[in-house]
């Protein structure tokens, strides 16, 4: 049988089927844990953009506790954003955004203060941009730029300028060597902010 011309085809087919089934089984067994981890990464990302509820290095249980206690789920008044409330009033919004990055979707959140204008932070919970280039968006050096920026009322809410350029109150520096990631991320954030504004009516006071 081994000399038959179809033997390699059959062999490859059987070997692939055998190994794949083990991998599929293994993935199914760990699915719950993986999903719980993803959920935690999301909750940490929400907390990270809201003022005063997060510091780096929090354990998973603490992240979950703070998320459950302090963050309200999106409702009609928040235009799809998670909110931090103090005394029943919205203190800050955590607006989710997602869209196609250079390789795969980029998903994250932008924090906006109650005035609908001041950015309180930005974070990502899913991205697979190029390590060392596009993936620099998750580093503090890039993300910290957004804090206290003022979303523009006219034109684009946020602009990404080339590294080294002079910045206005709604500009941040793009990532060096990652034009595609920067351009796409700029569009993703601006689309999310514009849609959110049209829903909560924070467009032009």
């Amino acid at each position, binding site marked *: 049988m081994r000399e038959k011309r179809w033997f390699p085809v059959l*062999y490859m087919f059987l070997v692939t089927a055998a190994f794949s089934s083990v991998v599929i089984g293994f993935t199914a067994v760990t699915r719950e844990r993986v999903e719980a981890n993803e959920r935690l990464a999301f909750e940490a990302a929400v907390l990270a953009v809201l003022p005063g509820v997060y510091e780096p290095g929090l354990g998973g249980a603490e992240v979950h506790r703070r998320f459950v206690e302090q963050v309200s789920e999106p409702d009609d008044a928040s235009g799809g954003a998670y909110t931090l409330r103090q005394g029943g009033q919205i203190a800050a919004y955590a607006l989710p955004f997602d869209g196609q990055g250079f390789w795969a979707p980029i998903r994250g959140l932008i924090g906006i203060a109650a005035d609908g204008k001041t950015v309180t932070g930005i974070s990502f919970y899913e991205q697979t941009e190029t390590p060392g280039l596009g993936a620099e968006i998750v580093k503090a050096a890039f993300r910290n730029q957004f804090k206290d920026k003022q979303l523009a009322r006219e034109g684009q809410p946020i602009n990404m300028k080339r590294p080294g350029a002079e910045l206005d109150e709604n500009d941040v520096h793009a990532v060096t060597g990652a034009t595609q990631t920067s351009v796409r991320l700029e569009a993703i954030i601006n689309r999310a902010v514009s849609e959110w504004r049209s829903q909560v009516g924070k467009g032009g006071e």
Partner: protein
Amino acid sequence: MAPPVAKSDMRKIALQGLWRDNPIFRQVLGICSTLAVTNLVANTLVMCTALVFTLSLSAATVSILRTLTPRNIRMMVETLIIAFYVIIVDVVLGAYWPAMRANLGPYVGLIITNCIVMGRCEAYGNSHPPGEAFLDGLFNALGYSFILLIVATFREVLGLGTFLGSPVPFFGGPAWDKWVIMVMPPGAFFMLAIVVWVFRSIQPAKEEKAK
């Protein structure tokens, strides 16, 4: 299952993998991961563990199937086996240690194309019984690991003043002006070159001796 390996054979396999044919400073294989994951000792340890697991088991599996696998498709089968073990590592990390998986980024997945793994499966696993193939994979992976750990230790201590994240005496203190370049990509090239140079001076190749 695997026939017992004679003690003398085991010594020979160990010596070759760890020293005489060391994958890094002798064969200069698997350099991309050496450069990429050695800025922190903790990342390096996990990467090395993943490689030890993948290399020893895939060499043994290739060896078990070697009499059955048609020669003309053996490389496809080897790649499949290697990918199988790497995916297992990746899934385990994703489920139990997501922070480490994020640190290592794509490099766990890239073990599939690590030349050491394919090289040992082709050069050894294909033509030796499973027990020996397993040991050969194990010692080659350990040979890779100890060089990586040397590189990583120097990079982390000189660059950040820490070892496994905790400050070391002197280098962690104010007296030491941290060489940040050591934890950036260029530092990997400097360190790797120095390590290869030092080890090749201690143990010159036969052809170099003959000159």
